[in-house]
């Protein structure tokens, strides 16, 4: 009976809850590191027990950027797939395999970071050298995520076989797009780690091509951020309309947006390498143009979302130019948290366009502006949407119901988060424009008058960081409450329907060969010539350097 209503049986729930546990434990550890960083940067706080600033910075980036996101996303996507196309017990076993492989990898890397053997930050740029086990750990995380990819592909394939001639369910389609993108882009980081980093860190080869490794990393690094964003978009397109009592604006447009993300999010990595030597500026500009193309599906999304809000409001009888806004369930955290995430994406997206603007990148590159930027995108838009999802997903998984108390706490949490982020991200943006660097411990830069101007903003970051940490504690309480304490019952798994009486979704949108083909062609166009250039004109490689990160 419960399974009928939620679409998830006990075994599915157990698997998905395991992913959620890792997510929320990561949130606590990573968030605590973030708090400590902002305190250190005021200049009035020293880390105890000889812990290094860059050690906690590595923990923060790895555990929040790579671990929390990947575990939540894969867990959430398993829930969507189990609900829309089903999960066989064999697929579930592979789901567990993916969980354990990722967890083993995470643990191995985490131990190396805690031992101080891998303070290389989450981007692990060579020729800084971490302990080989750190790289093996990351490889396991990627391999675990690939297992999840193939489980998801298999789930949709099987459903299609059983439902010939039918369109795949929208959410299952979106999950498969996201995992396809993930698989194609992680090939780059896997290549550099397996072919370059591991043999080099083991001492099997003496030197490494640095620019090549960076190019492979950023081939992965930008789609990585879309891998975070697309699950939030899934919730916006196909779950929020149900929560507000409406329907999906357009099934076809939603699918089109996701296809555009698949095509355009990968061949754009050079916009992270704009200030690097050894890459032809023509190719940098070409990838800047492609980067701008990936803004288009986000514009489509913005239109679709507000169209859904307005149509639903007008159907409910609200009139006037903006009167329909009043119908929105402002007091329902399942709506409010993702909605505020959406609002944050307006300045976040604008900042992103600035970062990607070719020569304009010189003004902000590697300043703390960039940190402010991705604390709006990932740490506000994406994470508030993930929190919003967990307010119904966790009760669905634990057989409980969201109650008034958790709703109130959730609303409070969202507001605390927004206030904290306003101060933290705001000060980061402003300090960055003055030239303050990212990824740096406290320093007065030899008494520089310029650096003295940044201190006020560093206090702003500490105030924001402290408020955000309170937000994390509230969120953790919410998670425990929803797991163990909330009243038992059947919580709704909200999935919106497509509007009736509209044109059918064009069949071409499900032509996987076509879209994968275009994706591959575009990647080949954007990368082949510069890649060959980099290899042909490469300088002698770099030997590994251990001492700069404190290892001798």
């Amino acid at each position, binding site marked *: 009976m419960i399974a009928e209503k939620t679409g998830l049986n006990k075994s599915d729930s157990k698997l998905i809850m395991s992913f959620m546990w890792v997510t929320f434990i990561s949130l606590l550890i990573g968030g605590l590191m973030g708090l400590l960083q902002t305190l250190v940067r005021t200049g009035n706080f020293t880390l105890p027990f000889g812990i290094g*600033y*860059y050690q906690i910075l590595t923990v923060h980036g790895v555990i929040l950027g790579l671990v929390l996101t990947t575990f939540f996303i894969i867990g959430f996507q398993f829930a969507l797939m189990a609900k829309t196309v089903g999960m066989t017990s064999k697929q579930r076993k592979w789901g567990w395999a993916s969980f354990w492989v990722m967890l083993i990898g995470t643990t191995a890397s985490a131990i190396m970071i805690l031992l101080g053997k891998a*303070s290389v930050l989450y981007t692990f*740029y060579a020729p*800084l050298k971490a302990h080989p086990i750190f790289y093996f750990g990351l490889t396991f995380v990627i391999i675990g995520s690939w297992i999840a990819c193939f489980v998801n592909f298999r789930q949709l394939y099987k459903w299609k076989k059983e439902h010939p001639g039918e369109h795949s369910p929208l959410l299952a389609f979106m999950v498969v797009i996201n995992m396809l993108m993930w698989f194609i882009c992680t090939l780059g980081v896997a290549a550099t780690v397996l072919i370059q980093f591991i043999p080099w860190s083991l001492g099997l080869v003496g030197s490494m091509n*640095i*620019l090549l490794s*960076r190019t492979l990393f950023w081939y992965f690094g930008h789609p990585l951020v879309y891998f975070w964003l697309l699950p939030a978009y899934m919730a916006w397109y196909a779950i929020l309309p149900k929560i507000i009592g409406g329907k999906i604006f357009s099934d076809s447009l939603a699918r*089109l947006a996701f296809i555009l993300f698949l095509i355009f999010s990968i061949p754009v990595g050079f916009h992270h*390498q704009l*200030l*690097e*030597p*050894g890459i*032809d*500026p023509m190719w*940098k*500009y070409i990838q*800047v*143009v492609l980067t*701008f193309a990936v*803004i*288009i599906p986000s*514009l*489509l999304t913005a*239109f679709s979302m507000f*169209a859904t809000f307005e149509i639903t409001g007008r159907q409910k009888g609200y009139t006037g130019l903006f009167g329909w806004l009043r119908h929105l369930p402002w007091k329902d955290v399942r709506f409010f948290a993702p909605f505020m995430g959406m609002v944050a994406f307006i300045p976040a997206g604008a900042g992103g366009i600035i970062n990607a*603007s*070719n*020569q*304009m990148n*010189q*003004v902000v*590159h*590697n*300043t703390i502006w960039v940190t402010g930027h991705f604390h709006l995108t990932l740490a506000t838009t994406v994470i508030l949407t993930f929190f919003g999802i967990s307010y119904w997903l966790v009760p669905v998984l634990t057989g409980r119901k969201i109650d008034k108390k958790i709703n109130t706490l959730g609303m409070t949490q969202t507001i605390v988060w927004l206030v904290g982020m306003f101060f933290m991200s705001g000060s980061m943006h402003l300090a960055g424009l003055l*030239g*303050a*660097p990212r*990824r*740096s*411990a406290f*320093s007065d*830069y*030899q008494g*520089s008058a*310029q*650096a003295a101007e940044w201190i006020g903003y560093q206090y702003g970051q500490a105030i924001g960081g402290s408020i955000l940490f309170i937000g994390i504690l509230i969120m953790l309480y919410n998670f425990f409450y929803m797991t163990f304490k909330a009243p038992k019952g059947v919580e709704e798994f909200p999935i919106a329907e497509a509007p009736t009486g*509209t*044109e059918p979704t*064009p069949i071409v949108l499900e032509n996987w060969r076509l879209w994968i083909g275009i994706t591959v062609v575009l990647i080949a166009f954007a990368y082949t010539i510069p890649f060959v250039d980099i290899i042909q*004109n*490469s*300088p*002698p490689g*770099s*030997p590994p*350097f251990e001492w*700069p*990160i404190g290892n001798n």
Partner: protein
Amino acid sequence: MHLHKYEKIWMGSGVGTLLIFLIVLGIGAFYQGTQPPSCMVTLDPTNVQAHEAFKEDNLGLQKLGEKEYTLNVLASAFNYDFGKDEDGNAVRTIRIPAGSKVMFQATTKDVIHGFQLAGTNVNMMLEPGYISTLETTLDNPGTYTLICNEYCGTGHHLMTATVEVYEE
């Protein structure tokens, strides 16, 4: 696939705006020559002194002509090497007259470093095996802090130097 009239207007103006942005960037980069730093010259990162610009004697500020300079910098963890002054001490401050055209030319002999002159648009990555160059005119007098803005190890935040732009 049906597109609503408002959606056409929205997407049209959105894509149109992006195109205008790209055209402005393109004109700036290809016509006015403000390309992002993309020097293609390579050297051996384990033997940077083999390159003329990074020989001990050639480091630091080199005057090329009236208000025209090259600044050769060799970065390493956690220091910017500008060569030595007459007394044999390491140069920590570079003094340049306002209005000078300066070619910044730098490389690293170990890990990746940043090269950012806070408060100006001088900002580039230094990667082993490559020379990074950036030309700019320093018009505004003042004291500018040179900062490593790419993580290079435990002393990353201590890697700094000073550039003074003075009025003549």
